[in-house]
């Protein structure tokens, strides 16, 4: 009997041990049973880059670049990004919408290709995903973005970077931190709501922030620096035409008939519309006698003829473009003659000694009707944009044998007008 009792006790004891062991095993198994939130993995390297942190950019379309590395190798058919002002905690039943925020209406625009970030692989593919805005805040502003694709993609856990851009986001209108809760799903129907997220795959929180703007304002005043001179700015622009005795000659050779000396004008302006240089004044005159004005593109190729004219070319260009010289004064009226190439203006050499040979004579201009009778003179040159240059004006005169003697003078004005 004792034996039986011991046997019974032994069996009972072993049975109890077995039962307890089974219970422990069951509980242990229960402990690792798939429970959606436990099985879900927190995604690493997650971020949302804003194209602007300016809360005043609320009325603008901002782009948010959503990036994260999938932690689970599993088919993904939906991604939820919920923006909250209180916290990024998955499971928190409260998600307060950031003030003024909007994911982009009911049908937010999303970009899953790598156009906006070629450094990434288009894990989601270039197309096939559509966005939906839910959780109405006010008016047509929504807090939650859900993108879905009925086919879905299967990222490689720990490797695949899932990336897409939200291209029509309205920033919160207040400065400070706000958050995003990101979750991925294996079905297009997510059943997501804060605190009741359904069966998701990967998840993660992100903090973002709007911030004030640093504003710097400055003014640039309208500027026009204009100087007419012979030697350097500040010196008088007095020009003596003629030979070494300052006498205009009728006997000079054709290629060196008459005499010229140059004047310069420097022009520096920040006028956005550029500037115009006007020429105003009379031709050479002595008492009631005049040396005839050259008109437009006068060709001096015959000794002993009367004319007074000038041409212009650019000497130094620092900024912008060289002035465009009015055709009458550009010196190019005959073949390929140019004002610059065929004249000298260093105040020591008779410029017309290199006036050129046919058909490439330098031409001169002086439109008396414009220079002497109009209110503002004749347009000599112009620039269309801000510029800084030094320009030479070559002045030339010749006389014939019948030109009345006398000291011929004239006062010429160059007038610069900027357009701002």
């Amino acid at each position, binding site marked *: 009997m004792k034996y039986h009792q011991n046997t019974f006790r032994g069996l009972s*004891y072993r049975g*109890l*041990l077995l039962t*307890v*062991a089974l*219970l*422990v095993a069951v*509980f*242990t198994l*229960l*402990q690792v049973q798939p*429970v959606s939130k*436990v099985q879900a*993995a*927190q995604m*690493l*390297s*997650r*971020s949302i*880059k*804003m*194209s*602007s*942190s*300016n809360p005043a*950019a609320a009325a603008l379309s901002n782009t948010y670049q959503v990036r994260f590395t999938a932690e689970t190798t599993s088919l993904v058919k939906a991604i939820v990004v919920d923006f909250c002002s209180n916290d*990024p*905690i998955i499971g928190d039943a409260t998600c307060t919408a950031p003030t003024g925020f909007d994911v982009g209406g009911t049908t937010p625009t999303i970009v899953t290709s790598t156009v906006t970030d070629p450094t990434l692989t288009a894990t989601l593919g270039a197309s096939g995903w559509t966005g939906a805005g839910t959780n109405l805040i006010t008016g047509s502003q929504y807090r939650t973005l859900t993108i879905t694709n009925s086919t879905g993609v299967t990222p490689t856990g720990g490797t695949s970077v899932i990336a897409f851009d939200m291209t029509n986001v309205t920033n919160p209108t207040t*400065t400070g*931190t706000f*958050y995003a809760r990101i979750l991925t799903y294996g079905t297009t129907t997510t059943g997501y709501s804060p605190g009741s997220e359904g069966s998701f795959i990967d998840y*993660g*929180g*992100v*903090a*973002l*922030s709007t*911030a*004030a*703007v*640093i*504003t*710097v*304002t*400055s*003014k*640039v*005043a*309208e*500027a026009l*620096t204009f100087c007419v001179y012979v030697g350097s700015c500040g010196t008088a622009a007095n020009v003596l035409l003629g030979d070494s005795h300052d006498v205009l000659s009728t006997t000079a050779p054709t290629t060196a008939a008459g005499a010229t000396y140059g004047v310069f004008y420097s022009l*520096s302006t*920040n*006028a*956005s519309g550029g500037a115009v240089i006007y020429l105003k004044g009379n031709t050479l005159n002595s008492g009631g006698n005049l040396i005839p004005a050259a008109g437009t593109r006068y060709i001096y190729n015959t000794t002993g003829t009367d004319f007074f004219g000038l041409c212009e070319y650019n000497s130094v260009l620092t*900024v*912008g473009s060289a002035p465009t010289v009015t055709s009458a004064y550009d010196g190019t009226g005959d073949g390929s003659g140019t004002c610059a190439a065929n004249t000298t203006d260093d105040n020591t050499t008779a410029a017309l000694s290199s006036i050129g040979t046919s058909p490439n004579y330098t031409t001169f201009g002086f439109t008396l009707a414009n220079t002497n009778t109009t209110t503002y003179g004749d347009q000599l040159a112009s620039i269309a944009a*801000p*510029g*800084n240059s030094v320009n030479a004006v070559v002045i030339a005169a010749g006389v014939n044998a019948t030109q009345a003697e006398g000291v011929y003078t004239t006062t010429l004005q160059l007038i610069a007008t900027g357009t701002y």
Partner: protein
Amino acid sequence: MQKWRKIVFIVLVGVLSLTGVGVVRATTYTSTHYQVNQILFGSGGCLSTVCSSAHYQAQVAVGEVGVGNTQGNAYQAYSGFNTNDAPYLQFIVTSSSTNLGTLSTSSVATATGTFSVRDYLSQGYIVELASPPPASGTHTLTALSTPTLSIPGTEQFGANLILNTSPAVGAIPVQNPSSVFSFGTVTAGAPGPNGTSVTSGYSTQNYFQYNNGDIIAASNQSSGETDYTISYITNISSTTPAGTYTFNQVLIALPTY
């Protein structure tokens, strides 16, 4: 009797295991499939939700075993009683509006702005420039694409985040409360998260640069507050178009968690 004690012990182990299920579900240590936050190893303490009355509340820690950040290549953890399980970003740009008046071709104009960054539970952060240079109408001031000295009379717009002597403007970043807890930097090439790094050209004294989109500051780990001063220089030439030039500096802080 000893056998029954064994039985009770095993049952207790089972019950404790069951109790543990809840803990694991709520907060888990991190592995391929699990993570845990807010675990206490210490002599004691209580959260404000416990140590509170109608008028007062407190968080109490007794004999904290260890505090601070521990990190490896893929994971990091924060020890200490006063930790939080939520990613955080504090990004404050001090709102400022500076009027430089009328610029001159003979002298440089300067302005400064300040911002601070603090982030938590992250792999670090970067701060990017997100604005075009000053503009008036169709003209945009010439931004210095490479580090360049200030040259009055030449149109220039640039910035840096260091203390300068010519012109005398700017300040070095300040770690708040100290470099023990704060790690933001403007040093060229300093790493940020995800292989990013600070763009060179913004940390050399008296040299300025401005390229929209450049990374001007970074930290490669969670960081206490770093206070930055960004300095701007503006020079104009004789042909800089007249007008009122407005510059709205938008900065973007991008943490990666």
